[in-house]
């Protein structure tokens, strides 16, 4: 048997005293062979990222020392002296991180940042290094590699930043590449490109890749073998086929079942009267570029949408497509340049002052990040009751409504007295939903409301939204970058590209007969399609 490239044996990463459990990673053993892609999948708190950081010697300094062994090229990565580690890191062992734009140092040119890695480990001349960087940039398919050398990180898109980071990681042809959620922050089409790039590079250089992800779709696209982790422990490990098609453990089955799929929701009937009619909304931003020219960005071009009571309209598209701008124009957080918004039969566009405030009661919004959307010093009950009180309900009645809603969103009544930090991300999002529904809106805007949540929690929150909609009959504008999520909850989906709605249809028709090329591209980029559309499916609904 050949020697594994990375051999993890009984890895334990303790948590400091006072944490909710004693270990972040406990007794973890697995191996990675040369040229293999091993995916570690798990939800928040599974210890997958800490495993990656332990290998790089980047564990947060407040954690007690890790125990066990991670052997790589005859050395234990956990007990390297700093000098030895420096020689390995970036050279034999490289890492790609989650937030590509934040991982590049904002004040240096990207070419210099990649060159730094090469300079630290070799004696190549300045000229040779530059040639090598250009070569790397073209290998990761960055446009115009020579000009790219002189670019600063803020001038690049997220996908381009990630390509730079991959070029950096590959600059010295490492034996092992550790990738921690490298595509999570990227658009689906960019994600598909980056995944393909990694597969090509593995092919060409025989690099072993330890790929950390929470997304089974991504796993299906890229992994040779899969390790499922939960609460710091290994649940099961096997080939991609085994895990995806025939999982042995209950937990794995549940995780896979929760992965949203491109199965359209059954079309809704008995829809009520229209609650939102937004017609020909336009918004142009003007920015000044170098040399004082004005650049026009049409964030929104004549977008028209309508939603009826009890109906959910999905807005899908990549970042910068204008979907959030449209939502903000509807609620008038952003003032549209032109267009009309009619909510519940009355004009919303011309309102100002207190009449605008009153009207806003009819539209509520649930944001993406449940961690920052709640005031940390306001109890859940107070947060939910605040809206109704502002809009004139007595304190008594508002409190009662808050308690009702807390139960309706699946939390215990006692949760009303607790503060945001005492809840998990999913629970917080439930509170945000309860808060939005407390003023009995006609229209609910969900702006990437489930994107930051683990798949199992995501499924629960989507169910909750559907259930509450059935009960309260509000219209919902559901913004997401994830077509799978949209498929699950939307009655109609509008696809946005560069400020325009390019296509709008029921999920059924949109997925089977997309009229636009762009829609087809988006559909093709959905990770894990082949696996989910495949004949054998365990854990399907």
């Amino acid at each position: 048997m050949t020697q594994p490239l990375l051999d993890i044996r009984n890895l334990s990463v303790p948590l400091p005293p006072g944490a909710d459990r004693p270990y972040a990673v406990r007794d973890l053993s697995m191996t990675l062979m040369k040229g293999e892609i091993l995916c570690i999948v798990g939800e928040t708190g599974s210890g997958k990222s800490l495993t990656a950081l332990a290998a790089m010697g980047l564990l947060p300094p407040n954690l007690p020392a890790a125990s066990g062994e991670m052997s790589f090229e005859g050395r234990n990565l956990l007990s390297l002296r700093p000098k030895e580690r420096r020689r390995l890191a970036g050279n034999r062992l490289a890492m790609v991180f989650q937030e590509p734009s934040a991982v590049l140092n904002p004040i240096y040119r990207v070419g210099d940042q990649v060159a730094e890695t090469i300079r630290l480990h070799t004696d190549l001349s300045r000229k040779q290094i530059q040639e090598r960087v250009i070569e790397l940039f073209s290998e990761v398919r960055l446009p115009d590699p020579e000009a790219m050398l002189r670019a600063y990180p803020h001038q690049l898109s997220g996908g381009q930043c990630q390509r730079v980071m991959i070029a950096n990681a590959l600059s010295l042809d490492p034996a092992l590449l550790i990738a921690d959620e490298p595509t999570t922050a990227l658009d689906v089409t960019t994600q598909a490109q980056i995944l393909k790039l990694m597969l090509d590079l593995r092919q060409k250089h025989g690099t072993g890749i330890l790929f950390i992800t929470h997304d089974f779709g991504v796993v299906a696209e890229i992994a040779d073998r899969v390790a499922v982790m939960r609460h710091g422990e290994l649940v099961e490990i096997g080939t991609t086929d085994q895990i995806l098609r025939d999982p042995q453990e209950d937990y794995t089955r549940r995780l896979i079942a929760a992965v949203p799929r491109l199965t359209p929701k059954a079309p809704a009937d008995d829809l009520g009267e229209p609650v939102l009619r937004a017609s020909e909304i336009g918004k142009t931003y003007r920015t000044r570029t170098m040399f004082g020219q004005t650049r026009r960005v049409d964030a929104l071009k004549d977008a028209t949408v309508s939603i009826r009571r009890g109906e959910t309209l999905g807005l899908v598209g990549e970042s910068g497509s204008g979907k959030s701008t449209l939502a903000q124009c509807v609620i008038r957080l952003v003032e549209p340049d032109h267009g009309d918004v009619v909510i519940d039969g009355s004009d919303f566009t011309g309102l100002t002052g207190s009449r605008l405030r009153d009207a806003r009661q009819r539209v509520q919004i649930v944001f993406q990040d449940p961690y920052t959307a709640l005031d940390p010093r306001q109890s859940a009950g107070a947060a939910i009751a605040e809206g109704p009180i502002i809009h004139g309900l007595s304190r008594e009645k508002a409190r009662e409504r808050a308690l009702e809603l807390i139960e309706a969103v699946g939390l215990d009544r006692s949760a009303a007295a607790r503060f945001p930090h005492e809840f998990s991300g999913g629970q917080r999002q439930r509170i945000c939903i309860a808060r939005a529904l407390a003023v009995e809106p006609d229209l609910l805007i969900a702006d990437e409301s489930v994107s930051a949540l683990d798949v199992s929690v995501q499924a629960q929150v989507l169910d909750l939204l559907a259930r509450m909609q059935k009960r309260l009959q509000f219209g919902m504008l559901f913004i997401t970058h994830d077509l799978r999520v949209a498929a699950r909850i939307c009655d109609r989906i509008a696809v946005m590209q560069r400020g325009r709605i390019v296509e709008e249809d029921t999920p059924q028709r949109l997925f089977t007969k997309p009229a636009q090329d762009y829609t087809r591209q988006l559909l093709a980029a959905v990770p894990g399609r082949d696996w989910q559309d495949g004949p054998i499916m365990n854990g399907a609904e």
Partner: protein
Amino acid sequence: MLRFWLIKLLRTVVTLWLVVTFAFIVLRTSGDPVVALLGADARPDEVEYFRRLWGLDQPLIVQYLNYIVQMATGQFGMSLRDHRAVIDIIAERLPATVELGLTAFAIAAIIGIPAGIIAALRRGGVLDRLIMTIAVFGFALPNFFLGILMILLFSLTLRILPSSGTGTWQHLVMPSITLATFTAGSLARFTRSSMLEVLEKPYMRAAAAKGASFSRRVLFHAFPNAAIPIVTVIGLNLGQLVAGAIVVETVFAWPGIGRLLVVAVSQRDLAVVQGLVLVIAATMVMANLLVDLLYGLLDPRIREAST
């Protein structure tokens, strides 16, 4: 680019105009300069003579316009007290203040910035707490008090440093240290918090993953990023140094513009005060311009936004 600097220049001019106007209003409403100069029991005809001589008998608005024109053309006028050109008096005193201010500033930067970096790297440790305690003392201790304490210790008790005056490097030691403590303390605190923020950034992790050494990570990756808020504080403190000099120069009898200002105000030597106010305001404005320039050098994003 040109447009950016034109706006900056315009703003500078407006700032100076506001300062000069404010000085005019305060000085004209806080008592009659002629009475202050000649004494309360001066003869009315003497008072009237000087009033006419200095143009103080004209309507306030005319005085103001004359004054603005003079300021704009660089004629600061003659001192009411010793009939020398204000510009000469200031030019004579300015080098002493610059010498003291720059020395103090160098001391503050050399001590404050490294202390802040070390405190950030040893966050929560003994060294961190020690440095931060000293820093709090540094900027909580009033200048004049520290100055007097030092005179008591080094001049009166130990007799190793001169208590006042100027001339040798020994004369410079106590005033510059006194002046530097406040700046050093605030620089240390700002450097620490700015470094702490930067050290948490994802790119610091990425630098470690490249195999960059600890010192390289701190000095090459972290510090330049942390420097932007520090530069802001430096800019504010550069202006503060002149203001702080007023106290320190008085305590140590240092013949700079700080002491000149105190004397001129107490004697209502309008022309000198006005000139000094303009000089001090100009240094503040210059410090701010310098900071803007440094921002652009440090951060490509700011460079782009400003062009």
